[in-house]
């Protein structure tokens, strides 16, 4: 399984923000402290979909800028993706895989709601 899944064994869930902070069918950025230091997250909210919340790296490795949360969310061949706002590479929301470049993968974190509270495991 992925590293993100491996981490779930050891990391605790923490409160991140409120449902109102999210933008439906789009992304927002958040800041968390992890064992490896601070990380910028891109959080996407797809109300009514099977998986409603996704958390990925906010950092775009192609552009070397923190912008992923500001990309357009969509789906390609049925899989939810985000397109980087800088050069439009697509990243799969489920596992961060870049569709244009096999060797690039964003980190992902388990994320979910507790009532209206957004919880992340990091």
């Amino acid at each position, binding site marked *: 399984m992925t590293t993100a899944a491996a981490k779930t064994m050891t990391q605790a869930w923490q409160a991140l*923000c409120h449902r109102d902070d999210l933008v439906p*069918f*789009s992304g927002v*950025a958040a800041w968390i402290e992890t064992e490896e230091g601070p990380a910028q997250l891109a959080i996407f909210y797809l109300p009514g979909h099977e998986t409603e919340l996704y958390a990925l790296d906010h950092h775009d490795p192609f552009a070397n800028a*923190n912008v992923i949360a500001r990309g*357009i*969310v*969509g*789906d390609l061949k*049925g899989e939810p993706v985000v397109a980087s706002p800088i050069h439009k590479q697509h990243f799969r929301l489920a596992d961060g895989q870049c569709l244009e470049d096999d060797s690039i993968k964003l980190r992902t974190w388990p994320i979910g709601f507790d009532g209206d509270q957004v919880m992340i495991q990091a």
Partner: protein
Amino acid sequence: MNNKVQRLIIIGNGMVGHHLVEQLIERGATAHYAITVFGEERHRAYDRVHLSEYFTGRNADSLALSTADHYAEHGIVLRLHESVTAIDRDVGKVITEAGHYPYDRLVLATGSYPFVPPMPGSDRDGCLVYRTLDDLDAIRSAAESASTGVVVGGGLLGLEAANALRGLNLDTAVVEFAPRLMPMQVDSEGGELLREKIEALGVQVHTDRATQRIEDGVDAAHRMVFQDDKVLEADLIVFSAGIRPRDELARDSALEMGERGGVVIDDRCLTSDPAILAVGEVALWNNSIFGLVAPGYQMAKVAADTLLGPFDHIQGESFRGADMSTKLKLLGVDVGAIGDAHGNQTPGARVFRYLDQIKQQYRKLVVSGDGKRLVGAMLVGDNGVYDTLLQYYSNGLDLPEDPASLILPSSEGAPTLGPDALPETATICSCHNVSKGDVCATLDAGASDLATVKDETRASTGCGGCAALLKSVVEHELESRGVEVDRSICEHFAHTRQELYDIVRIEGIKTFGELIGKHGASSSRSLGCDICKPAVASILASCFNEPITDAAHIPLQDTNDTFMANMQKNGTYSVVPRVPGGEITPGKLMVLGRVAETYGLYTKVTGGQRIDLFGARLEDLPDIWSELLDAGFETGHAYAKSLRTVKSCVGSTWCRYGVQDSVGMAIRLENRYKGLRSPHKLKFGVSGCTRECAEAQGKDIGVIATENGWNLYVCGNGGMRPRHAELFATDLDDDRLIQLIDRFLMFYVRTADRLQRTSVWRENLEGGLDYLKEVIVDDSLGIGQELERQMQTVIDTYRCEWADAIDDPEKLKRFRSFVNDARPDPDIIVTEERGQLRPA
């Protein structure tokens, strides 16, 4: 040979002479030759093939084959309105009324003149010809005081002239010496059908008539008297009884001539004097004169090779004659003739004929004795099968088992010839001599659309007759290379942008969710993607103009639209307030300076006559904008596919040449169309006089002041593939100008593809500029008012997007770097350069 620059003189600046100059420029001949061109006419080379359009709205400028400065830009001297009166071959010079000009090489491109049969009275006032712009001016002015007109000559040009007279509201007749119209192209059945069709248009047709003399008329200015003493009266007479080569210079300087005129040339376009070449309608090759432009262009190409041979040591192709097949529409009647259309030059040829007297169509095939090859064809009333037949003919393709199926009505299953059936050598465009192989080579070299192929090969940029064939070959070849020619916008909609636009408008759909729910490609709950979402956002905005920051629209926008600023490479944004027409008060300039200083922004004057403030952090954008809004600025839509800037020159207010207030008009236009969401960005320019300091001809919409109002240009482009805008309408008053721009823009918004600038849209528009003029200027589709109304809705609902967002805490919530932390993004690092900050 030697490296000294030689002197090259070209006599004649008609279609072929001009094409030669183009070919020479393209091949860098100006490095070897100092080129001088003499043109007897006042106008620089123009499109004689479309001469008649001079009567239907085009002017000398729009018919011109190049821009006014084109020759000068390449160091070529163009001496217009100066005829060469003699050639001195011994010394090597040409003589005009203005002086003597030495040459090393000389080219005769003097074309031909209309033949006026010698008869008493043919030189009377009001007896005119149809060849040049000046001739047409003369016809136009003579027509003002005339009510009847006669054309002498019922050939191709005669019928074209007759159409022009009809257009000038004259009662028109055609007089033909032969027993039928167009005797060169059609047989008696075809001629009879043609006569019926033309008479039905109200043009009288008199065949078998030889005019003996012209004298004073009784009821009209002139009376024509025929061989049988019958008479015909008219106020105006146009002779169109054939053309003769303008070979007098060659004759006088004793070059070898044909028996019935024409300067003899060889396969390299050389005359009997190796220093002198001849091209176009003055040249006689293999005892033939070619009265069409395509063979002339081929000669020009060969002549350019011949002239450059000594320098690049390449022996180019030689001239090998040309096919005289023609396809025309005369007085609205299709006529086509291919190869040996009469079947009298091919021993043993057999004929198939099809005549439909109800639909008034006539088709004839001439096939070889063994029934295998097409040797000629004739069409009257419908040219639908012309392209197919021409390919059978010119490529020697095997005819189908039953050749008659090619001309029988299609209900009987005529097999059409697909582009795949054509061999590589098949000529697609005869004007520019482009084969299917040439088209494939451009595609192999990376071209991926029709416009690029046209650009690179020039195919279909001449007479335009090959446009449909070229399109089908390109599409077919792209498909066979695995390129999607599927025009669906993306995997979420099996529709083009135009179709989506119509659906949205007709069904009144106001959200992306509703659109994809009802019309999406898959029934599952799909999200859309970064292709269809912004496209639909743009369509919704141009239909309903709801703020793009409304919750329903937010997820559709590119980041630039979401944050109403342009994202830069380090994740910061640029801020570009609107500065209509580039006019700004000192006070506002100071505000920009102050804001930039406060927020540490890099400032630069843009190419669009305004000021860009770069490096704004996401969370600073609302503060920056509230200061700008307070000072009276509005959003500049630099982030949007919508109107960017209207560039202006200072115009009549200050400039000593200005004839109208260009700044005033630019500001008016910018304020009118700001906020209009369109398939791609839009740029305008308004210049105060023809000096064109605002470069309006490089814009989507260009407006240039005239003494009487404004000239409107459309579909120009700077950027990746510059394209000059085309003259669309002249001498407009303010209201008409705005009415036409309203219609034009809305029509573009309706029909263009996603991210298609007006220039590319125009190049792909079937029917081209003429069609566009019909729809916009003449309102041929009757949608003018509707387009104007739609534009008015957009204008009435305009609100500055920043002003709309700034008071709405919900909307401002997005302008936070992190939802759970107030810190700015620590990874944005800047450094100083030339006194300002830039990304490190």
